[in-house]
């Protein structure tokens, strides 16, 4: 009340226009900061507009057209969408594969990473060597990882079957990435090989950042290491773990390189992911149409958006309940 009275007394203009002008002036008192703002954000916004925003919009535009080379474009309305939902088993196969991967792999990645971090935290000898050895795969490009693991999975002379033979389990030998039952899991395994080290390092950093007193207090409370893990460490680094899980989830929703080089989506679509399907239909199928794959991309855009919003909501909800 008093403030408003005082305002009018002092003649401070409170019209919307004045507010806007004030806002435009920014917090820098005396010069118009707007100029600086424009200079600073324009390059980023231009890049963003040209290479991110515009392509996203264009994807949706594409999705209601048939787009052939030479600028021959034909408006088809929602035909692609109808086709996709009524008659495209491969798409749903790809979605189910991708979601399986995105659902399972984060748990493996983060779980293994957490266990490894705890091992290092337990101050084992050679911890430095271990850390280097475990982290290195993170830095290797997918192309290299893919070739490497194709050899590891090679039926005749690959490591996987060689190990089975050497322990007398010949009948367990597999064409690991050549059979629909094992192909997806083999890829998930290879992918986990690359990423476990990353999760390990992050977990380790998080554990090291914990206040020492809490762990000491837990020790005084007569906690064994396992109780300490379950009741103290995991709850306390929960935000980090959640972050890692979401990060891993997002990473799996976009997985392409490994699949593309190792299996190309086969056999029998058992490792087809949405990325490889979009790529195949756009650049490999002999239809030469960019419209339909854009429809797939558009749908996937919405799916990913929902997943991420859902996850965020889920974890936020839990946080609120807890505290």
């Amino acid at each position: 009340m008093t403030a408003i009275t005082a305002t009018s007394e002092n003649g401070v203009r409170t019209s919307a226009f004045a507010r806007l002008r004030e806002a435009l002036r920014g917090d820098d008192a005396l010069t118009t900061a707007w100029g600086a703002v424009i200079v600073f954000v324009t390059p980023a916004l231009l890049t963003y507009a040209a290479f991110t925003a515009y392509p996203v919009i264009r994807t949706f535009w594409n999705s209601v057209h048939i787009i052939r080379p030479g600028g021959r474009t034909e408006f088809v309305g929602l035909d692609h969408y109808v086709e996709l939902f009524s008659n495209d088993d491969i798409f749903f196969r790809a979605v189910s594969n991708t979601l399986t991967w995105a659902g399972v792999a984060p748990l493996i990645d983060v779980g293994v990473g957490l266990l490894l971090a705890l091992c290092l935290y337990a101050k084992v000898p050679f911890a430095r060597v271990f850390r280097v050895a475990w982290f290195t795969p993170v830095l290797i490009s997918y192309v290299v990882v893919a070739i490497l693991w194709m050899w590891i999975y090679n039926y005749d002379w690959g490591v996987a079957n060689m190990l089975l033979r050497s322990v007398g389990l010949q009948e367990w030998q597999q064409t690991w990435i050549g059979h629909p039952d094992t192909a997806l899991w083999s890829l998930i395994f290879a992918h986990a090989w690359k990423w476990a080290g990353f999760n390990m390092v992050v977990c380790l950093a998080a554990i090291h950042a914990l206040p020492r007193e809490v762990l000491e207090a837990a020790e005084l409370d007569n906690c064994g290491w396992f109780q300490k893990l379950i009741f103290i460490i995991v709850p306390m680094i929960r935000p980090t773990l959640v972050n890692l899980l979401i990060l891993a989830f997002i990473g799996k929703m976009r997985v392409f390189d490994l699949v593309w080089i190792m299996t190309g989506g086969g056999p029998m679509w058992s490792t087809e992911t949405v990325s490889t399907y979009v790529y195949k239909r756009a650049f490999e199928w002999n239809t030469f149409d960019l419209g339909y794959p854009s429809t797939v991309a558009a749908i996937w855009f919405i799916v990913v958006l929902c997943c991420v919003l859902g996850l965020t909501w889920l974890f936020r909800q839990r946080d609120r309940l807890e505290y």
Partner: protein
Amino acid sequence: MRQTRSWIAAAALAGATLTGAAVPAQAERELTLWSHWADHETKVAFVEKAARELESRHADVTVKITWYQKNPLYAALQSALRAGQGPDIFYLDPDRTEYIDNGLLLALDDLVNWANVFGWARSAWQHDGKTWGFPLEASTVEWYYNRGLLAQLGYEVGPPHFQLSQADFRALVEKATSEGITPIVQGVGDRPYPGAYVTHELLLKKLGKDDYGKLLSGGLSFKDPRVLEVFGYVEDLVKAGAYPKSFSTLKLGESHYYFHTKPGGVVFPIGSWYTSRAFNPPDKGGQPDDFPLGMMNGPAMDDGACNACKTNNVAGSFVVNAATAHPELAGEFLNILATPEYGNLWLSTVLVQTGIKADTSKITGPYSDYFKTLEAVNENAEYFFGTPLQFFKGKCRETFEQVMNTGFPAGLVDAGTATDMMNDGCFTG
């Protein structure tokens, strides 16, 4: 001061765009060619020779050839042509009719001297009354075998048909498996068709050319009893262990090595371009010098409508980009190839058939025997022109790749499911 800076930033951005847009000025004519066969030294040498010849005819012309593997080549072509940046001439298989449908190719009828090209080869590229490609490489589907192993298993083939019966072939498969020998070497790790060779060759023999053609163009159901019979037969072979365990990941290059070097196998059905890999020195992936290579025809089907039938097709061809700036140069280049001298050169160095008219009898040297065998095996053959991939489009093709090439021969789906899926993707009747 601030304005200046933002101006500079804007200018830099604009400049960046402009440099990207600027096309380097060309004083000379450059003919670009993208081709498969990066690893095929004899083919590379063959094409390079023609390129040098063109350059020697015109002082201002350079021919720039980029060699690819097949899959990356197609990926590059699809995007580059769409971007309007394709090469003047490029490699294409005749099954890629979508390039024609989308107006990306230049008709070659008036550019090439067709008198020196076999009619059947030219017809592989004829659509809508025009000829779209230059049929450089031609091949038949051949069943190569290891003479030593076949004899060891107690079988032999010989004139006039070089063919086992349906029952004998199955017995051969079973016997080989029982002795721990891989009966049919095949790998589909990096190719969309080899796994379908056996099924489709047998379908052709069973149905005859007309009905097989209907099957490929969607006019005949995969549920036709004769088709089902063949599928059942192949399913039995698969169950008997006809293919290598590593079938689905074995690459084409690896399957050659598998067949002739390690661990070895009895039969290797493949296009007659087998030689372009196998007749290299062993350390370049070729077969051992003393390898007992034999050739047979696929087994005769009981009640087969055409047991002498086999697939003949034009394979690697050169086409001209519709957007090329130098159509006359491209034509001249192709005409250098369209001569009997080059035809003979191709045969005697690449050792594969060609669409260029040439005379196999003129081939001498270490591989002349091979060509004699090839001629003998094909003496009574009736050819069906075109591979399944040349007929199948879109989802049908995808189903073919996954089911006929991989799933069915790998034993992942049974004959009933496989034919269901093929009908779902391909049958229009």
